[in-house]
């Protein structure tokens, strides 16, 4: 055990939350390619996308291609998530029944003519067809794994009891019947329930944005991130909320809250200039991986090393969210990984400058607060010396090994 790797004292609760979050994120993250395809097509081809902006007119080709946008987000992505959820529980067959079941829940608002909650006093009507439904991510989170689990249980019950030669018939009909039955359950039960939960969450989220209270979420988000709950929070909570909002408004601030690379850059910059001397040389590479590569995990250990720095991340993160709320900014799709390149790719063309400024401002604020918390590097006495010593020891051991080999 070195100063870098203190005894692990993780609490059971944290691991449990991490596990549940990883379960949700595990359904979303293997499908990020679809999100990125959706994001790119959106920023390029929607009416005020890059193509029309550069052409200076509404081009026919972009009008044609923009037809793809809606189905990608409201149909394909929920189905992929349900499939992945089912796949994780029971392989390919599990994925298939999960996807089948989701289609029932997906169509519940059309079939049952559910009227959405009006957010700004406008008249709202139930969806007339599948073209008007919202993305059913929450239903996918539930029905994908649940239906696969039912199939797995069923297969377990009949295992060894099927007459030779009838296995394929029984297997396929079991999947078809369970998937089909769960589609009906999805339509009448899971679909409406998740629909109203999503509507309620959407209303709450909208209220947080309207009252400009949204920056307060940074108080929870930034500390949770450095405890490696980043994926759980982003893809378990904000991505579903954001998808819901983006399918309606074309963009969402929820894609920006966790994935903003600004605070991490601020932390690393503060560490580079004012952190413990021994670790400063590791920082520049970490900055590249974090800010350009979008792997935020790389800055978490620096915060865990100087936990007080989490305050800098909170203040910087909240500043970024406030900036985004004030100017009504949003990304069209999840920026994942949270790299500045991914942010650029999913920024609406008319907001890209303000969005980039927001990242820089949150980085700058985090840096300044971090610098103050690190006491401009002058507080580095006992800890620093210890770390220096440790690093020196390692270094000399390495040198010795190298000398032996040479």
């Amino acid at each position, binding site marked *: 055990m070195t100063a*870098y*790797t203190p005894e692990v004292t993780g609490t059971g609760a944290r691991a449990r939350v991490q596990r549940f979050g*990883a379960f949700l994120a*595990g359904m979303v993250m293997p499908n990020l390619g679809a999100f990125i395809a959706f994001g790119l097509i959106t920023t390029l081809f929607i009416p005020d996308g890059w193509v029309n902006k550069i052409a200076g007119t509404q081009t026919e080709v972009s009008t044609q291609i923009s037809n793809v946008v809606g189905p990608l987000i409201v149909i394909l992505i929920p189905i992929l998530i349900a499939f992945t959820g089912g796949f994780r529980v029971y392989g390919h067959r599990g994925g298939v029944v999960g996807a089948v079941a989701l289609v029932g829940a997906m169509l519940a608002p059309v079939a049952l003519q559910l009227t959405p909650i009006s957010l700004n006093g406008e008249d709202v009507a139930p969806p007339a067809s599948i073209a008007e439904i919202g993305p059913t991510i929450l239903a996918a989170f539930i029905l994908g794994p649940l239906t696969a689990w039912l199939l797995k249980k069923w297969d377990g019950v009949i295992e060894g009891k099927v007459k030779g030669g009838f296995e394929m018939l029984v297997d396929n009909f079991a999947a078809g019947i369970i998937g089909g039955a769960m589609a009906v359950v999805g339509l009448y039960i899971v679909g409406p329930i998740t629909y109203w939960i999503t509507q309620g969450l959407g209303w709450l989220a909208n209220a947080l944005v309207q009252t400009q209270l949204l920056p307060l979420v940074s108080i929870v988000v930034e500390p949770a991130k450095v405890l490696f709950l980043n*994926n759980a929070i982003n893809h378990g909570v904000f991505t579903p909320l954001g998808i819901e909002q983006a399918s309606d408004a074309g963009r969402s601030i929820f894609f920006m809250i966790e994935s903003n690379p600004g605070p991490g850059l601020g932390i690393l910059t503060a560490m580079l200039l004012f952190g413990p001397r021994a670790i400063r040389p590791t920082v520049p590479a970490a900055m590249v991986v974090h800010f350009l590569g979008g*792997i935020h*995990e790389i800055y978490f250990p620096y915060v*865990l*090393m100087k936990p007080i720095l989490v305050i800098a991340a909170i203040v910087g993160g909240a500043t970024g969210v406030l900036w985004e709320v004030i100017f009504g900014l949003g990304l069209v799709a999840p920026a994942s990984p949270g790299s500045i390149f991914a942010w650029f790719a999913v920024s609406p063309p008319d907001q890209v400058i303000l969005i980039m400024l927001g990242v820089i401002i949150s980085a700058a604020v985090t840096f300044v607060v971090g610098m103050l918390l690190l006491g401009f590097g002058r507080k580095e006495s006992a800890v620093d010396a210890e770390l220096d010593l440790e690093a020196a020891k*390692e270094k000399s051991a390495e040198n010795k090994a190298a000398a032996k080999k040479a």
Partner: protein
Amino acid sequence: MTTLDGSSVKKLIVACDAGMGSSVMLASTLKKQLAKNGVTVEHSPVAHIPSDADVVVTQAGLADRARHVVPDIPVVPFQLFLGDPAVAKVVKAIQDGSTVEV
């Protein structure tokens, strides 16, 4: 504290939460460092660490979960994704075929 015999390591797993980001990065670094030693280096989500691994390295914040998943495989927690001494120790043990306390 367990003792890890570097010469017996044939498969090293780098685990992270999603098995897509930080673990891939560290795994590609270690792959290069251990290319000559005939060690398979793979990355995985911490919830799905393969049971035939000889040693697992993961960030300290995920070590509890890793130990829960593979209680019989030595788990080496590290702090920094780049240049962490704990990882360097394991790499050195494998390269030299020596033993190390983890």
